[in-house]
């Protein structure tokens, strides 16, 4: 089963209030997913990275963000924020739509090898079925600020959390006095 399908199934179960017991092991422990919460309709999905953060391109390589966009966003009450660090600056803009602490929902673990160290920058190579992916990280992205050595095995952890939303639609917060056009369009076949 494709990773995207696994995540889809996982979140679909969570959305139904089920709590999947299985921990998905995929591609030689490259990724593991564990459910620790429920993903309801009235939720914002936040994906802060802990420890050595992963960049969005990594997620895209897993079709993770793409899948989330195509599926979760079909549900207008669910939003995704991908963060490289769980820093409060990144939550700016959420305060008016979210309340309550994030509840972990999915935890992923990505394993790679330090392929190069240059000063405060570390290149980590992840082997994927699509070929190796190299990502560069800074010192502050490592736990305790300790830079690993070349050749070290490292593990990057990603937590996907759920935050309840106070309002059901971002769209409700208008700062415009333009009248609504909703429902005023032509119904049926347009002919000119």
């Amino acid at each position, binding site marked *: 089963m494709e990773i995207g399908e696994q995540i889809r199934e996982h979140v679909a179960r969570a959305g139904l209030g089920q709590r999947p017991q299985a921990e998905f092991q995929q591609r030689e422990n490259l990724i593991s997913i564990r459910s620790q919460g429920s993903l309801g309709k009235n939720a914002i999905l936040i994906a802060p990275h802990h420890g050595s953060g992963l960049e969005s391109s990594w997620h895209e390589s897993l079709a993770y963000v793409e899948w989330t966009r195509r599926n979760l966003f079909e549900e207008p009450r669910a939003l995704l924020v991908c963060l490289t660090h769980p820093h409060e600056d990144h939550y700016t803009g959420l305060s008016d739509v979210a309340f309550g602490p994030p509840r972990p929902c999915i935890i992923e673990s990505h394993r790679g090898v330090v392929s190069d160290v240059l000063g405060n920058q570390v290149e980590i190579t992840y082997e994927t079925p699509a070929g190796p992916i190299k990502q560069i990280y800074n010192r502050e992205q490592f736990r305790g600020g300790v830079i690993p050595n070349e050749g070290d095995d490292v593990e990057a952890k990603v937590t996907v959390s759920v935050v309840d939303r106070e309002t059901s639609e971002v*769209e409700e917060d208008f700062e*415009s006095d333009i*009248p609504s056009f909703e429902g005023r369009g032509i119904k049926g076949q*347009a002919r*000119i």
Partner: protein
Amino acid sequence: LKATFPASKAEASKDKLESEPTIKLDIHLFHCGQGDTVLLNLLGEKWVLIDCNLPKGQVRDEFFLLVSSLKINRLDLVCLTHSHEDHYTGMEEVLRYFNAAGRSVGMYCVGAVEPRLIHTWMKRQNRPKSSVLGYERLNKYVDELLKSKPPRIILFSADANSRPVIVVGGSEEVQLHPIAPSPSESRTALQEAFLFGKAKDQLNKLSIVLALLIRSKKSEFSGLLAADTDAAGFRSAMERLKEIEPHRPKPTFDFVKVSHHGSWDSHEGSGVAEHHKPDVEFVAGISAGRIKVLPDREVLRDFLINNWTVLVTTKKLAHRKRYALELFGQNPYTEFQARNLKITWSEDRQLEWFPEEAQISLPEIENYQTVTKGTQT
């Protein structure tokens, strides 16, 4: 005695022309700098305006002169593909012009996302006040037209799930098929924009991409009006087109109004450059950039290497020696003169254009200044 002779070939052909109306299209790409003003004459009867960038002054005046010279008294459809000022500047004035002195507008097509939401977004982005105000005034005027009794305009909210607008002329018809954005793409763009605030401008992602299709027994035509859609939007549009016409697994176009004025960000890794690249038989129409940045040289090169016939509304601006200075200081609207690039297609599948020198060649683009991907606006 009166001898009867068979009609000559020319006479027979003339008779045929008189009895069977010719299927024809005229596409006017009005040079308005970086922006789109596309005026379509479909089947010789119906007029459609896709976007306009008509700042007050010479350009707007020349547009109305063109409208007057073409004796257009009714715009059957006005479409605002997305809410960037280089696509709606002067649109309120166009609607007002056509709602006076016996003239009229038929349908007004906009994206399915609420204008007041876009307006809110524009305010949060701190877009120029004049742009925000222009958008507000346009939409309030549309509201006024919708509220009048009887309504003086019909609203058509379009996305990839919408049914096509059928343009009827005589016994023939043209389809204007919205093929992007999908509703989910629109929602994604909006939600990301609101969450990331000023950091992201997602309006191009909301561009309505239109397929202009003639599927007559006599002949066929496929056109693409790509607005300012980005690479993802282009891919999505191609996929949608394949759903609409599953018997055509690879889109083929007679004419393309390329996306985002021929910019790199609408091109790199996109449906144009990579495996989704459609076959384009004849013409790509590009409005030249007001700041002498667009169209991008490498994009033009890619089109030309693919043997597209590439037309630009003017070449004068394409030689952009001082674009940086203008980008940072001068009024970008002062240098160009409006002129009309007219592309005509008729059912014998001949595309013609005027002026002829609008066609651009590979050697001509070598002197262009290169604009790197990162610096493009």
